[in-house]
Structures are given as structure tokens and as C-alpha cells.
């Protein structure tokens, strides 16, 4: 019961934060709202008995990615002082598209009403996860390190390029 309530709570919090981001002008405040949404997602994970995911969410998303955003916002003055403004038509079309996607997805998910979701806490939950990660998905796991390497190289090249040009 509590679990269901907390799922709704955290889910609603994340949705609310994202919604408020839509109307937020100040980019820093928007970043803060994003942080809220990400932390709420972490809570959601906890409620869904994905403890490792919750922790990883906080470390990676809220910790690394968010920090990266804040740093980038600080470094680029244009990002700090941006004034988002889109044409009315674009806004309407965007909202319409998103709404349509939502409606369709909800329609699809009606089939899910039948499948149960266990939120039982199990001692060996993380152990099983580790076994999966380093066992069955070992190849994908190692590939990931390549992906991260590639992204590091790309980031360094892109960000440093201007220094070279000057």
C-alpha cells in the first residue's frame, strides 16, 4: 500500500518538476528543477525495489550529469543568459505531438493491466543483478567502457577545438 502510494508520489513529483521546467525562464532554476525530477526518479526506483538503480541514479544522473550541466551553464555565457522563445505555431504543434504520443502510449499500456509487478524486497536482488551484468551482459558492459571512452575523446576534441583555433 505504502509502496503504491510512494510510487505515485515520486512519479507525480517528477512529473510536476518537469512540467514546471516548461515554464521556467531562468536556466539555472530550470536546472534545479531538473535535479528535483532526477532525485524523484531515484525515489521511484527505490519504491520499485530497484535499489541499485536508485543509488546509481543519484550518483550518475544527479551527481555527474547534473554537475556537468551546471558547469556548462557557467562556462558558456550564452547558455546562462538565454531567453527561450519559440514561435506560437511551433509550441502548439510540439504540444500536440507530445499529447498524441502520450495518448497512444497509454492506449498501448492498457494491455499491461494484466501483468503483476512485484515490489518485494529481496536480499539477493543486487547479487542477481551483478550476476547478470558481469555474466550474461559482460560483453555489453565492456562495450560500454568503449562508448564512454569515445564520448570522452569527442568531448575533449569538441570543447578544446576552439582553444586551438585561437
Amino acid at each position, binding site marked *: 500500500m505504502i509502496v503504491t502510494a510512494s510510487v505515485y508520489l515520486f512519479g507525480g513529483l517528477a512529473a510536476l518538476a518537469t512540467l514546471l521546467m516548461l515554464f521556467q525562464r531562468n536556466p539555472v532554476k530550470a536546472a534545479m528543477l531538473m535535479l528535483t525530477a532526477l532525485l524523484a526518479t531515484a525515489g521511484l526506483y527505490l519504491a520499485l525495489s530497484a535499489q541499485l538503480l536508485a543509488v546509481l541514479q543519484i550518483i550518475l544522473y544527479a551527481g555527474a550529469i547534473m554537475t556537468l550541466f551546471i558547469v556548462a551553464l557557467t562556462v558558456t555565457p550564452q547558455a546562462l543568459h538565454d531567453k527561450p522563445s*519559440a514561435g506560437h505555431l*511551433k509550441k502548439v*504543434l*510540439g504540444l*500536440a*505531438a*507530445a499529447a*498524441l504520443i502520450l495518448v*497512444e502510449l497509454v*492506449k498501448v499500456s492498457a494491455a499491461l493491466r494484466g501483468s503483476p509487478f512485484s515490489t518485494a524486497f529481496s536480499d539477493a536482488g543486487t547479487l542477481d543483478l551483478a550476476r547478470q551484468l558481469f555474466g550474461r551482459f559482460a560483453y555489453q558492459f565492456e562495450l560500454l567502457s568503449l562508448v564512454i571512452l569515445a564520448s570522452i575523446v569527442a568531448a575533449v576534441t569538441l570543447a578544446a577545438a576552439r582553444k586551438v583555433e585561437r
Partner: protein
Amino acid sequence: MEGNYYPLLKWILAAPLAGFALNGLLGKKLLGEKAGGIAGSLAIFISFVFAALSFSDLLNLPPENRLLRDTLFNWISAGSFSVDAAFRFDPLSAVMALIVTGVSFLIHVYSTGYMKGDAGFNRYFAYLNLFVFFMLTLVLADNPLVMFVGWEGVGLCSYLLIGFWYEDPEKASAGKKAFITNRVGDAGFLIGLMLLWALLSSNGVFSMDFASLEKNAPLLASATVLGMAAPTLICLLLFFGATGKSAQFPLFVWLPDAMAGPTPVSALIHAATMVTAGVYMLARLHFLYELAPKAMEVVLLVGCFTAFFAAVIGLLQKDIKKVLAYSTVSQLGYMFMAAGAGAFSAAVFHLATHAFFKALLFLGAGSVIHGMSGEQDMFKMGGLKKEMPFTFLLMAAGWLAIAGVPGLSGFYSKDLILEKVFEHGGMLVWAVGVLTAALTAFYTTRLFVLTFLRAKRAEGHAHESPLSMTLPMAALAVLAVAGGFLLKDRLFLFLDPAFVQPEHTSQAARLMLVSVAAGLAGIAAAFVLTLPKTAAALKSAAAPLHSLIFHKFYVDEIYAFAVIKPLKLVSDKVLFRFFDAGLIDGVLVNGTAKVSYAAGRALAKVQNGRLDLYALVFAIGVALMLFWVI
């Protein structure tokens, strides 16, 4: 197939063609004037010799079987429509071929003197030879389509030769006028031919050579097209083509303008040969016309009207060549009158004598013009009897011949026509014919008097023409004087083996007296009325009529207003502005380009480089896909 195979026929045609090639390809630089003139004349002479040989071979055949043929190759073969390039030599073609090559040869010799020193000397001879080639194709053809090739070819050469001195825009446009007027007639000719073929083939006949046409023509006697009897319609259409080629009303307007060309050209093409093609065509297709009496009536009336009309205009012309041009139109009218009255042999007889004396008259006029250094206005001549005696004598022969003085060639042929017209055409037509004879005598005498007699009006001295010009004239003069008498009965017997010499009735004698009297009256009247004081008095007395006649009844102006102007207007405003420039250029060509361009521009807007728009479109696409799938 009837007729005997005769290989010489194609060589009659080949000689002038070779002359054309020689003068045309080698030209002035490589060939030179003297050699070019000799080559051109020699080519025609060879052709004449071959024609004479063929003629004598023809005479050796029995009269019912006088036909020589040669087929060169299969020209058109399209399904059931098959036409050969075939030639025939029968009495009618023999007469025509001899006249064409003979008179042509004399005129070629004359031209070597007349055109001496002209910059386009070799081009002239090339064109003239080409003309003879096409004319021979016309008269030697064995089916109407090969004849049409010759028909068109002589039209082309006429255009080339009328506009020979093309740097003068007036002369060039005279050539254009001739060609275009001819083409109008040719449209009728072609439609008539197509109709003929269509009707014959629907009756199961698929060959169009003249022998089979003659045999199968009666099949058409009962057919009707558009409510008219088929033979009548076909004959009228073919006759319309003849009015174009032979300068009858309403398509005669090109002939007076054609005098812009060199005088030997006028003599050859517009007196002796090309303009007679229409008469030849009628004589060739006489069997068709005999099936259509209504068409023959039309031919008779048109010929009669044209003869009279042209003679009237010729009464007051100032230019010596224009008088002769209208005279030609008038005499051609006589030939058509004869054809319309059913006397096709009489028409051919007059064709022959007319070739002699008209060519002579034109060559004489050319001699006068040559001697007067280019002057063509008769009122500026006079008294040339002393200065150009040869020309004077020879032209006198032509003058008397055309006036119908008894014993000369013109008398026999014209008298015969009038007799036949009286028998078959009616009193009125005959009376108009007699009146026209009087007018003919009048205007020719007037020409003669103003040019050679009376006091000299011009300054300077006119020189007599060289032998190269006077000798051919002499030959023609002999023919003009004696030709009628010699050819008279022999020609008819030759053309129509069933000919029977008619009895000389007293009625015929009376008719003859009337026409001779008319001719003499015309001559006398001309001597009187051309005296300066009398002429001036007459002119002021009948000033409006005089003006009307002098301006050729304003026919050219009427055509320009009624036909040419609307045609130009339609061509410019409708066909050019609306269809060509507007519709095709504007809508189809430019329009397609504009539409493509606009579509391209519109599509280019999709690739505008804006990421947010890309994302938006992407999302809309995903949403729509989900919408339709789920």
C-alpha cells in the same frame, strides 16, 4: 501492262538534270560563262534530240497502240497504296515534250546573249535546266503523283527564277507571291487526287497510272461526295489547282508580278511551258472531265471570263512585259474555254501555236529592253523600226500571229476554238470570245505601234541585239507563221486516231469571217486610238473607267484587304500571340519551368537547417505513425 518498254525516256529527263548539276555545282568560277551557256543549251538540245527520236519511234507504231513506257523504281509502297516512278510517251506527251524541249532550246540560246555579263549567269542556267527537267517530269509522267512532283518542281523553279535578282526586295517578293499563290491551288489539286484515290480504292482499284485511271474512271460516275457527284467534285478541285498554275481567275495575280524575272524566263516559263501545265493536266485527264459535264461548264465559264478580263486589263498597261503577261492569261483562258467545250485537241493546238508566238513576242520584248538598256515603259519608246530592224520584223510576225491574221498559226488555232465553243458552249460565250479576240488584236497592235512605230521618244541610240538573240527569234517566227498551217490536221490525227476531218460547213465559214473581222477591226482601232490626241481625248472622256482598268480593277488591293490582311491578323494575334508565344512558350515551356522551380523552392524550405524544426517534424511523424498503427 500496255505500252512498250522504251529505255530512252529516262535519258530525255537525265540530260537537263545533268546540265543542272554541271552549272549548279561548278558554277561561274570553275565553268565560266561561255562553257556554262554552251553546257546548258547543249543539255536541252540532247533532250530535244531524244524526244524527237522517241517521237519517230512512236510514229512507227500503229495508231491504236502508240504508247511507250518505262518504270524506274517503286517510289511509294504503303500497304495497298503503291506508286511507281513511271513515265509514258504517247501522242499527247510527245507533243508537249517536243514543244518544251524545242522552245526551251531556243530560249537557252537566246539567254546566252541576254544574260551575258550577269553575275549569276551560271546559276541562271542551272535553274533553267532544272526547270526543263521538272517540266519534262510533268509531261512524261505516267501517274498523277509523278506529275505532281513535276508540278511542284516547276513551281519551285519559277520562284527561283522570278526572284533571280533577289537583292531587289520587290523582285524577291514577286517570286514569293508566285509560289504562294500556286500553293493555294495545289491544295485543291492534292485534295482532288486524294479523293480520286479514296474512291477508286474503295472500288477495289489500287493502281493510279493514267491507263488504269482511264479504264476505271466510269466506276466513279455514280458515286457522290458531300452531295455532289464524285467526278464533278474531283474535277473542280483539280481545276482549282490548274487555275493556280495556269493563272486563271481567281489565282492569276502572280503572273503579271512574275515579269520581275529575266525576260527569257518570262518567255519560257510564263508563256510557253509552265503555265500550260494546267491545260495539259486537263487534256491528260479528259476522260475524267468527260464524266463531269458540270465541271466542264465551270471550266468553260472561268476560261471565258478570264480571257475577257485579262484582255481588258491589257488594253491600258504601260509596261511592255505586263501587256504580254495579261495577254498570256487571256490566251490561257482561250485554252480552257476549248477544254471546257470538250475540244481538248483544239486546246492543245492553241497551246502549241501560243508557245510559238508568245515566246517570240517575249523574246522580242526582251530584245527591245536589252537594246533600250533596261527601259520597259512603252511610252518612252517609239521609232525602233529603224534602229532595231531585225527585232521589228520578227516581232511583227508574232504580232500578226496573235492578232489572228488569216494564214498564220494563231488564226487557225483561235478560229478552231471559237468554232468549237460556238458548237458546244453557247452563243454568249462565243460572243465574248470574239470580243476578246478583237481586244487581243487591239492591245498587241498598240504594243507594236508604241514600241516600233511613230516618232522616237527616247534619247540615245538603241542597238540591235546580237545573233545569239535574233536567231532563236527567227526560228520561232518561222514556226509562228507556218506552224498553224503545217500542224493543223496532222496534229489532230496524231492526238486522236479516231479524228475525222469535219466538213467545212457554211456555218463554220461564217464564224470564221466574224472572228477575222473582229481581229482586223481590233488592229485598225489600235492604229487610230493610239494617236496621242485621240488617246488623250478618250482618256478624259471615260476617266473613271480608264482609271479602273489601268489599276487592274484593283484585284491585288482587294486580295490584300480581304485575304492577306485577315490572314496576317489571325496569324499574328491568334496563332502567334495566343498559341505560340502564350500557350506553348508561356504555359507549357515556361510554365513547366516555373512550376518545377516553385516546387523546388517549396521543398527546399524543408531543409532549412533548423534543428528544432527537424525535431518537431520528427516528433509529429512519430505521433502520426503511432496514431495510425495503434
